[in-house]
């Protein structure tokens, strides 16, 4: 049942095994009592996975960066088409509503229309974009953007990057370069909720996208945190700027065990 809702098979098996372990030796009589005991144990197991070990308060971290007189830098990474650029603009909308000064850095210099896409969002959100067109080295554009932001009193830089498959070595190397050169505060990995994929590298937090397209097949939230050990910070639930939510672990568990 968990698998049908997109929890990865290995993860579901481990979860069941741990529930079975916990229940072994316990005295319960009657079918209903057993059923309830299993359900409670399952809920506990899922909640444990979904609740982040350390909390990640972006606004507080921004304050820390402000005190150090430098911009807070977030890099958005993920496979092609997961929703990096859209999510970046949603986060921008939210940060702006917190009265922060945000700069967007157009570091997807590969995909057609990527720069114009970001400029369109920026115009609607009334924030500036730092861009150098196409086919340039993304890492150095990011570096220049951060420098520019520092000099011009920006609180946050949101860096858009080109989509890439994890096993595409040259592209992953280019991404490592961008991350290493710029030492961002947060590397936000974008994951589509519908998808059952392997662990991404070098990330600090996960954002699940297109949560609105999957009905109750919310298992990816579980598998993803389980595999990466990283918290799901935010969830994308639609195509407009306000469609951004915090992960509600209780709801996920309820949907999974329904």
């Amino acid at each position, binding site marked *: 049942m968990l698998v049908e809702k997109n929890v990865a098979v290995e993860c579901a098996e481990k979860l069941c095994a741990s529930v079975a372990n916990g229940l072994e030796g316990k005295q319960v009589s009657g079918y209903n009592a057993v059923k309830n005991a299993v359900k409670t144990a399952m809920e506990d197991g899922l909640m444990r996975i979904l609740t982040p070990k350390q909390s990640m308060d972006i606004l507080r971290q921004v304050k820390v960066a402000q005190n150090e007189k430098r911009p807070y830098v977030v890099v958005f990474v993920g496979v*092609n088409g*997961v929703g990096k650029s859209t999510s970046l603009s949603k986060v921008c909308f939210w940060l702006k509503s917190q009265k922060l000064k945000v700069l967007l850095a157009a570091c997807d210099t590969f995909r057609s229309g990527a720069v114009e896409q970001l400029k*369109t969002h920026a115009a609607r959100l009334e924030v500036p974009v730092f861009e150098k067109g196409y086919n340039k080295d993304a890492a150095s554009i990011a570096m220049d953007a951060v420098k520019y932001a520092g000099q011009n009193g920006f609180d946050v830089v949101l860096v858009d990057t080109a989509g890439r498959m994890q096993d595409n070595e040259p592209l992953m190397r280019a991404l490592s370069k961008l991350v290493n050169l710029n030492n961002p505060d947060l590397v936000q990995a974008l994951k589509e909720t519908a998808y059952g994929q392997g662990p991404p590298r070098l990330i600090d937090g996960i954002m699940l996208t297109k949560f609105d397209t999957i009905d109750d097949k919310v298992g990816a939230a579980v598998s993803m945190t389980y595999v990466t050990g990283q918290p799901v910070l935010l969830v994308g639930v639609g195509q407009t700027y306000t469609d951004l939510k915090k992960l509600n672990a209780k709801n996920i568990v309820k949907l999974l065990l329904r």
Partner: protein
Amino acid sequence: MVLAELGGRIAQAMRSMTSKTVIDEEAVDNMLKEISSALLSSDVNVKLVSSLRKNVKNRINLEDLATGLNRRRMIQQAVFEELCEMLNPGKKPYQPKKGKPNVIMFVGLQGSGKTTSCTKYALHYQRKSWKTCLVCSDTFRAGAFDQLKQNATKARIPFYGSYTERDPVKIARDGVEMFKKEGQEIIIVDTSGRHKQEASLFEEMQQIAAAVEPDDIVFVLDSSIGQAAHDQATAFKEAVSVGSVIMTKLDGHAKGGGALSAVAATSSPIVFIGTGEHFDDFETFEVRSFVSRLLGLGDVGGLMNA
């Protein structure tokens, strides 16, 4: 590549049969159990897996197996045929006709690869000396027209779109109209990404389809989509008459089985697969040679090349 792991596990399960001295029902069951679990781990729909399991078993005649004659081939054949069956809608894809306009509309979930595949599709036919062109009726996504325009310019394909018109139905109608007058042969209409949970988006898709009366509707599906694939594909199929499927991002390393299930749901043939972001990363699809490659049997058909 997507599905490589699945292929490896199925092949392994089949190999384990050859090393066995006695092939009885239990041995076959064990192999099928392993194959089923491989399919499930790669997100193939649960119902499809159980029917595949039943069908393979029906195909394998245990008495023939007992005599040891060609056991390996017989089992391989049964699994192979059933996997093909899963991907075979029993229906031929639309064949564009020369010398007249063929309107092809692209639909699919957000970010599945429609705009990219549109260009690849146009280029594929252009290279076979068809007169092809692109219409951008995506007025929703930021930068959508720029994306199509830049792609089309790179590939030297005529395009139509607008920065100011907000009505995708009007753009689609006008663009198709204009290109028909010009005598274009393959007129491709790119549309916005959409999903079944938002009814208004599906209505818009139906309106565009009604306006341009496409000869074929291509459903573009990201191969890394998981268990949600089946329901989405079914919904698209119910809303418009999907006739072909393009499966994208086969160069990724996601599990891929969800996409295979979705194909079964649309009961439409896969016509092309996308294997990268570049225009040349595009192959014509042929079920038997795909399954044979999947199982590491080599490219039997030799038909994979575009």
